[in-house]
């Protein structure tokens, strides 16, 4: 089994392109600081070993600088001290050299110097390579305040919280803040219409930073009145952040407040046309308004473009995230969104054979790569990544069988469209007092798993075939291994039941995922672990520890073997089932990673976050290749279109947004739901998008229509300015109310029957 990390042998975390662009040579990753509770103790259990790991006896860390390489604690203290000294005296080169030799991370230097700040602060997009192994949740690994962007000023590697805050020290007269702000407000309101919308974007970041400055400098009363006076002017979609801000009234509170740190450590990105920017600059210089100018210079990143200023509507579509819009260059990288070529499989054509297999009940499966035009599988998609870009597990015989099954089912697939809507079968979880928190369905729709708030994972068989586990070792040895039905003989009939309960987690199970071959099941939980379960024995095989905080979501790669997880610690991790440590850590989100999805070609991972952005990561090198902003609330669902070109995202704001991955553009907005969209799924051929929500409805949308009238001219692509149709009602094909049952999972069977599920919650 080819494991990914062979080529890039060390764990790579690439700086987020959106962060401060650190020009410095990357310090090599280093072991975690003194005794992190994470890695080492985990080995024992993790090494217990997935059966799939082949002969590889749980290898040590993939990264060469293993724990053994770390210097003794006392030495390290000294080294840290020296490093600090060098830094203080601006001896950057010496510092770098020493650090490289000592294999120490910048963060550690910092971490050693201060008391740990709040959790989850690491992974901020400052661009520092947060060594994978060195991502112990508890240690405050804070990105440095980025220098002036583009100014070539060396990035300061000092992530000390107090240093971060000290940027607020240069203060003006607190009494004048309100005046500054209302002066600017007046200026913007009197500006020409075409500029007003663009300049209005300044209000929110300025408001936040001025407020924080006041608080930091302990002008509490001024801060309070400043807040009272102007918070009502801010756009309504910022209210969650404003609420956090409003509770922050003392300097002491600022330490450890994550939201505050986000504001400080990442620049708020605004996209403004050159004309509008000139106007602003002239105004501020005329007025000698240094206070605001300083904030603009230091805390905002203004992405200037040439051309027409954008309209209010265009701006509103794109803003709303915690740190402003994505920079244009953040979405410039090439993304191979095409599908991988399907391996040639001999398809037995006789129909009788097919029937036989059906009854045999040994249907095996693989993700639906075949999707659209059948002819395509012959030729390589120009947009597809090289076949071996990511090492993928080889197909087993059972996988091939399953692929054949899948193809046969595909021929019986219903062609959906506005005239032919799918039937929806709803699986209701009754008596789910424990709280249903996650659901997944196997690709062949034979099993359903539910994750519950009472820490259990329950697997149901929804076919007449019951769930059976393998016999015990003693009994297995008695079986004739040469017999034809050996696979049948190894199963223990006595254990057959429709429901199997898996116990092991110690907190609510927030995510579940079946492996494509249906032999394994993943679950992730509040207890910080991801667990791998065998569906042969119905026991836990591995507990992957890495996230020290609740893990919100996990998913298997469509080709198996790899899986991704994301959690409260703001990072997403890529794992392989036979490695107890993550292969990649995707850091960059400014808040919890709430959902994770693999691209159908397994080369990319999409993550949605509570910072209201969606990011697309390259599995090969860990780069963030796309940042999508536009949602006004935490993202809770993601779905790739079967052809890999588009991504649909749903959030607490009840809207579903559609993105063109290749161009990095928003291409559609589907309004209709009145509550969080928890489930999204494209039909097998991509004609219909189904969305399920907390508002007890399943809605069907015409995906073909959204994508066909796409304007992808060069201008749009270059500027990213989109004009979305105001009304998405003509895209809505159907709304189906459930009986007070929130819809939390959707799944299209291979024949395009839509399965939905949720727990009945009597009012």
């Amino acid at each position, binding site marked *: 089994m080819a494991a990914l990390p062979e080529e890039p042998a060390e764990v790579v975390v690439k700086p987020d392109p959106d962060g401060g662009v650190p020009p410095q040579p990357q310090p090599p990753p280093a072991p975690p600081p003194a005794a992190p509770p994470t890695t080492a103790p985990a080995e024992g259990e993790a090494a217990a070993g997935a059966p799939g790991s082949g002969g590889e006896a749980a290898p040590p860390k993939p990264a060469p600088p293993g724990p053994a390489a770390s210097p003794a604690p006392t030495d390290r203290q000294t080294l840290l001290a020296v490093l600090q000294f060098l830094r203080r005296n601006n001896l950057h080169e010496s510092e770098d050299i020493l650090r490289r030799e000592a294999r120490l991370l910048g963060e550690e230097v910092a971490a050693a110097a201060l008391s740990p700040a709040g959790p989850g602060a690491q992974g901020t997009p400052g661009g520092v390579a947060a060594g994978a192994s060195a991502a112990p949740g508890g240690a405050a690994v804070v990105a440095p305040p980025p220098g002036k962007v583009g100014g070539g000023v060396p990035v300061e590697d000092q992530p000390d919280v107090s240093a971060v805050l000290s940027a607020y020290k240069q203060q003006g007269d607190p009494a004048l803040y309100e005046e500054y702000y209302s002066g600017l407000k007046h200026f913007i309101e009197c500006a020409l219409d075409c500029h007003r919308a663009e300049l209005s974007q300044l209000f929110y970041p300025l408001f936040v930073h001025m407020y924080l400055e006041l608080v930091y400098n302990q002008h509490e009363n001024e801060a309070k009145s400043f807040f009272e006076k102007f918070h009502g002017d801010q756009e309504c979609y910022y209210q969650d952040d404003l609420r956090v801000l409003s509770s922050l009234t003392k300097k002491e509170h600022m330490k450890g407040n994550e939201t505050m740190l986000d504001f400080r450590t990442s620049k708020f990105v605004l996209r403004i046309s050159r004309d509008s920017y000139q106007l602003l600059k002239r105004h501020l210089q005329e007025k000698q308004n240094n206070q605001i100018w300083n904030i603009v210079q230091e805390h905002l990143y203004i992405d200037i473009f040439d051309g027409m200023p954008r309209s209010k509507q265009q701006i509103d579509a794109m803003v709303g995230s915690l740190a402003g819009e994505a920079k244009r260059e953040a979405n410039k990288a090439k993304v191979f969104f095409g599908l991988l070529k399907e391996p040639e499989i001999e398809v037995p054509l006789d129909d009788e054979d097919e029937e036989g297999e059906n009854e045999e009940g040994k249907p095996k499966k693989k993700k639906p790569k075949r999707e659209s035009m059948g002819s395509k599988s012959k030729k390589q998609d120009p947009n597809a990544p090289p076949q071996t870009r990511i090492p993928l597990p080889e197909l087993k015989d059972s996988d091939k069988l399953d692929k054949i099954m899948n193809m046969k089912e595909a021929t019986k697939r219903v062609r959906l469209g506005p005239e032919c809507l799918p039937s929806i079968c709803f699986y209701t979880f*009754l008596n789910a007092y424990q709280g*249903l928190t996650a659901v997944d369905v196997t690709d062949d729709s034979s099993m359903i798993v539910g994750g519950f708030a009472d820490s259990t994972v329950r697997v149901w068989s929804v076919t007449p075939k019951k769930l059976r586990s393998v016999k015990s070792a003693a009994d297995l040895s008695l079986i004739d291994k040469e017999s034809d039905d050996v696979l049948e003989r190894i199963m223990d009939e006595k254990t057959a039941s429709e429901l199997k309960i898996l116990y092991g987690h110690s907190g609510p199970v*927030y995510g579940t995922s079946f492996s494509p071959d249906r032999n394994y099941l993943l679950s992730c939980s*509040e207890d910080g672990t991801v667990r791998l379960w065998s569906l042969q024995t119905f026991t836990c095989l591995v507990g992957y520890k890495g996230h020290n905080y609740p893990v919100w979501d996990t998913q298997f790669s469509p080709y198996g073997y790899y899986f991704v997880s994301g959690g409260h610690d703001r990072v997403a991790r890529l794992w392989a089932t036979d490695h107890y440590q993550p292969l990649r850590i995707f850091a960059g989100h400014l808040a919890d990673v709430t959902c994770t999805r693999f691209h159908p070609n397994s080369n990319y991972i999409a993550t949605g976050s509570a910072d209201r952005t969606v990011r697309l990561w390259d599995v090969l090198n860990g780069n963030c290749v796309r940042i999508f902003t536009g949602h006004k609330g935490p993202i809770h669902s993601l779905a790739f279109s079967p052809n890999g070109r588009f991504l649909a995202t749903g959030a607490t704001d*009840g809207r579903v947004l559609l993105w063109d991955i290749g161009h990095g553009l928003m291409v559609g907005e589907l309004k*209709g739901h009145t509550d969080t969209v928890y489930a999204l799924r494209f039909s097998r051929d991509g004609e219909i998008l189904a969305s399920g929500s*907390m508002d007890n409805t399943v809605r069907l949308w015409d995906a073909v229509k959204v994508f066909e009238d796409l304007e992808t001219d060069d201008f749009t692509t270059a500027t990213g300015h989109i004009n979305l149709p105001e009304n998405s009602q003509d895209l809505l094909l159907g709304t189906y109310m459930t009986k007070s049952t*929130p819809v939390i999972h959707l799944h299209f069977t291979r024949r395009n029957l839509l399965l939905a599920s949720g727990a009945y919650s009597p009012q």
Partner: protein
Amino acid sequence: LSSSPCPAPCPGAPSSSTGPRGAGGSGTGMAEEKKLKLSHTLLPAESMKVMAEAMGIAQVPEETSQLLADEVSYRIKEIAQDALKFMHMGKRRKLTTGDVDYALKLKNVEPLYGFHAQEFIPFRYASGGGRELYFYEEKEVDLSDIINTPLPRVPLDVCLKAHWLSIEGTQPAIPENPPPAPKEQQKAEATEPLKSTKPGQEENGPLKGQGQSAAAPDGKGKEKKAPVLEGAPLKLKPRSIHELSVEQQLYYKEITEACVGSCEAKRAEALQSIATDPGLYQMLPRFSTFISEGVRVNVVQNNLALLIYLMRMVKALMDNPTLYLEKYLHELIPAVMTCIVSRQLCLRPDVDNHWALRDFAARLIAQICKNFSTTTNNIQSRITKTFTKSWVDEKTPWTTRYGSIAGLAELGHDVIKTLILPRLQVEGERVRGIVEGPVVSNIDKIGADHVQSLLLKHCAPVLAKIRPPPDNQDSYKADYGSLGSLLCTHVVKARAQAAMQAQQVNRTTLTITQPRPTLTLSQAPQGPPRAPSIIKVPSSITLPVQTLVSGRPSTPTQPSPPPTKYIVMSSASGSSASQQVGGGRDGTFSLQRSGQPRPCATPASISPLRSPALTPPGAGMLLPLAGALGSPLPSLHCPSAPTSSPPDPPLGAVWGPAYQAQLPWEGPGGLPHTALGGRLA
């Protein structure tokens, strides 16, 4: 059994727990309100002092407590915001104490143990000594009580149940799905036809609009097929579709046949289905026509049994919580009124107990008035007027007279007081004229007897309320004429009964817990969607109250119904009705019906029915009717034993049981409602 006794008011004793917990609630309240007006909510410094005192620290300086309050408020808000995150990830709408625990865990704080989510934790308020306290009450629990109570039922385990939410784009009307048109919507359509679905309402803003109005799902599929209308800028008034699917037609046929058929068990099931099935909205016009045509035909034929069955159908329709009948009252009211006041309802007026039908229908009309009378349609006043008119008329036969009085009496005490009591004297004279005078006809005598007992029955409770206690025969006679003395004894009885009931009220009521809804685990249907079984027998949730009541003694003596001689109208009029409606589709149907002006519909359709009714003055004895009815009727309303009939409680209060007790044709006592599991066919 860890719930050890705890002192009732514990304002701040476990300060670490009550503090955050209490304010956590307020914090989330703030977080959930969706206004852009944020405020700096702070705990009062006073609370800090109280808590400090509870911990044994006296004299906390003002400054310190202010600082503490600020800090604690900030931390609590922080925790509340984290807790919200857990709520969202848990895919819930309600914040639980568990969420707060997990949020504390995130902050490396020991969670609060021993707090479990309750639906609602009421805050109590107390003040004294110039201080105000908010706390939630923790009752003292006696351990022995807990030990001695029997164990509660084990909660049911999670299970999966599959059903069709949609079949090729249309939502089947099965109990698992919400009713296709919720009652509110039906009501809105009936009462405010222009307002019901405003065009563009659902487009407006999903962010603000509580887009439940967008729930007009079943119209979608049809509307798409008419692209001509689609493009029009002005949306037409939403049509309700009256086409029935094959399954619905089948259901309709089965139900109507069972309702008027000879098998009482089937009828009970059919009525049960009508009363509970959520998917009948589309069949309502058919049922309504079926009933009105049925009454029209059977009144002419004097077929008492069928009239009774039809009235029971009306009752079942009214009982269905998902139906709103307003639109169909123009058909139903005349039918019901006919059953109340028609001169003749049965072949042998001297023997058959048509009085009970009149009583039952009168109760139905009262229920209709109660449910649907508004200031715009004036149903109640129109009905009252009709009754009064026919009562006052000198030439009105005794049967109609009885019906009018019954109808009025059921409308409530106020109507009795204002309309019936003043006429007692006149009516008494009339009754006396028949009873004591020369024998005119036996029919008249029976009629007069019935009217008398009816008046006594309804007037006595009212009089008991409005007249001061000393009940004097003479004063009654003076006030109410010939009925006076009888009235007096009845009032005395009514008073005694009222006193007894008052005593009973004080007793604890026995609560009957309903079984939990749907416990079945069913296999997912695999393969292509199959047609849902529309003929669903209501599940065990709807095990009706009737079961409890039907235990009353009644006399199921003759289980096998005698050969029926009435017209089986299920095929004749039933099919003609459905042809008429089915062919006409929606537009013609509503036009045809609405063309009949409703106000005059009521009297107009009654009078022609009354005229052809022959009154064969057959002489006979008072015998309990045991003829055409499926089950024999005990003679509850025989004048020979008027006192044996159970006292009629005031209308409305005990509608269900009362009618159960009085209408034994509801089914033989102890009808096996467990047979609900069976199919209708």
